[in-house]
């Protein structure tokens, strides 16, 4: 299908909207009626046609507007993109991975022509047609990491693998759930995960690190993570907390359906071939409560998950104060009927709301 790109904002007047298509394919993160941290990883090799899991790097209707928002963030704060000197090779690896994947997966939108080290990259949605020399930084307007991630939705962390650990040594981080690349740069897996509650005690991070260090070339993986965001903000960074944190107090029973968004991260893991580094793209999808409630199964389930979520998690995810108001709203959409297993809407088989 050809994608109709939206012209929308993720700040100020928040004109961001999801089409019906985008709502149906939203990566709802709960496969059952409760949630706890787990090593919920699987292989990343396709998924149902049209779903966000189908392509290696999903492109959707928000593409052009998200890239515009990223440019604004970078303009105000260039430190959102950093790469330690030894990570340049990994940057080229990522550029190659994204260009090859997108040109193969979306031939109508992206084209890549390679003649030895002479590459021509055509990005039709963004109106880019550049010729450059692969592995020669002087032939691109930015470093390879910044160049390609100014054209790719989602954040990107590049992890160097050494000393039996992963090190956050490069990244493009502008759509993050309240963490900072400038703070985390140079940290290892356990250091940057230190603020997360419960998961350390559960041994999850030890297993997760082992799993990630064994991700091999040609066999990428993926998992979902989620949190809550008031207003469709991409940039919920600690740097700008003073701007968005207070918006959490603007929720009312009247506006919560439109203002409160579930924020889902589709995280993928790729072993990079030349640098042996790990690429960790973190793609953010937003969906308002009221749009989610158009899918009866999701309405029933979201109420139960939010109601039963451990206090530690609701606190860490920053919505403990708003939880009672959320539950008042969500309970209207829970009729107590059982739900089908799995994340998909199942609109044909799940009954409509019985109240």
């Amino acid at each position: 299908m050809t994608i109709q790109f939206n012209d929308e904002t993720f700040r100020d007047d928040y004109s961001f909207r999801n089409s019906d298509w985008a709502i149906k394919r939203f990566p709802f993160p709960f496969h059952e009626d409760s949630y706890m941290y787990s090593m919920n990883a699987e292989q990343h090799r396709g998924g149902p046609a049209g779903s966000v899991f189908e392509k290696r790097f999903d492109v959707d209707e928000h593409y052009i507007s998200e890239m515009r928002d990223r440019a604004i963030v970078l303009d105000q704060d260039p430190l959102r993109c950093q790469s330690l000197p030894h990570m340049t090779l990994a940057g080229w690896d990522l550029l190659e991975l994204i260009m090859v994947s997108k040109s193969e997966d979306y031939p109508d939108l992206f084209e890549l022509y390679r003649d030895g080290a002479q590459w021509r990259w055509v990005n039709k949605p963004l109106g880019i047609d550049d010729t450059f020399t692969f592995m020669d930084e002087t032939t691109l307007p930015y470093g390879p990491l910044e160049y390609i991630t100014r054209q790719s939705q989602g954040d990107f962390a590049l992890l160097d693998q050494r000393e039996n650990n992963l090190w956050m040594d490069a990244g493009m981080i502008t759509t993050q759930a309240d963490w900072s690349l400038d703070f985390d740069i140079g940290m290892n897996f356990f250091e940057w995960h230190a603020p997360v509650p419960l998961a350390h005690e559960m041994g999850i991070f030890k297993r997760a690190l082992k799993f990630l260090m064994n991700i091999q070339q040609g066999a990428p993986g993926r998992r979902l993570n989620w949190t809550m965001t008031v207003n469709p903000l991409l940039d919920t960074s600690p740097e700008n907390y003073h701007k968005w944190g207070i918006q959490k107090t603007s929720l009312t029973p009247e506006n919560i359906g439109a203002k409160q968004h579930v924020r889902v991260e589709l995280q993928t893991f790729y072993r990079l071939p030349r640098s042996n580094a790990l690429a960790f793209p973190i793609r953010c999808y937003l969906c308002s409560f009221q749009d989610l409630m158009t899918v009866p199964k999701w309405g029933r389930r979201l109420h139960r998950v939010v109601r039963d979520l451990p206090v530690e998690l609701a606190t860490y995810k920053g919505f403990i104060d708003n939880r009672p108001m959320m539950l008042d709203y969500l309970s209207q959409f829970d009729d107590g009927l059982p739900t089908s297993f799995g994340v998909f809407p199942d609109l044909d088989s799940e009954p409509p709301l019985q109240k």
Partner: protein
Amino acid sequence: MSAAPQKTKSGSETLNVVVSAKVPVTDLVTRFEFTRTDGAPFPPFSGGAHTVVTMQDGDRTRMNAYSLMSDPADLGIYAISVRRDDTGRGGSKFMHEHVAAGDEITITYPVNLFSLDLTAKKHIFFAGGIGITPFMSMIGQLDQIGGNWELHYSARSAALGAYADVLREKYPHKVHLYCDDADQHIPLEAILSGQPLGTHTYVCGPEGMISWVHSTAASLGWPEAHVHSEAFLAPEPGQPFEVRLCKSDKTITVGENESLLEAIERAGVDAPFLCRGGSCGMCETDVVTADGTFLHRDYWLEQEEQAAGKKIMPCVSRFLGGVLELDR
């Protein structure tokens, strides 16, 4: 999440290749070059990576890991170099005698358990014999990105030092060859002393050489994280033993010349693996009950774990005695 449930395959992704050339390098070493059956370029790889080659030897499936030693910048071919070992379990002998140019075989995607530390200011390589192979691709990679390196290569004789001639010709000031028959020895202490801060060293060769480099570096105050090694562990033959696989409800006998992992696979049980050489940790298996002696040979389990007898690495380790039940 299970968006699209898929069976996780053991091992890694595979590539179908044709043996495009079989080239004698020394009396003992032969190089095998591969091109892809579908004619496509190979995936890029990093210096130090290996591939696992699957060989069909009658009804026996052999899988051996070999370092990729071609130039990482050339995606037209992959190459490995195999040293013939007449005393081992026969994998290298099979390659030498039965694999010929034109044969179609399967290899895995590159896996790197011995990569360059790209934060290093300088890289010093120590190779013993066939241990030269991973350094061939590391040197290729450093050449491309302009890294600072030197190689100290010890061989029985100049004639048995695979690739010593090409390396010395191309890098006369960086490559140092030491031949046993000329009574030449690597002056390890002198080399490791007085290196600039941020130097990393890498060793690949016989076990004795690896521990020599590690202990010498440690005694000179080198940080452990700056000393990297890759041992060539091949499963060793041993006495046959019987194993009960609880999950699959099967009892198998591990033959003298096969590894426990191979016996599990032969029984049709899918078991995870990557390196098949005791270092990646992928095939780690829980022991349910054991009455006998473990012959742990891996580099993965901690010493206490080996002593506890609750885990075994079936790619290289064996068992002697009565009962062994595994959670597989």
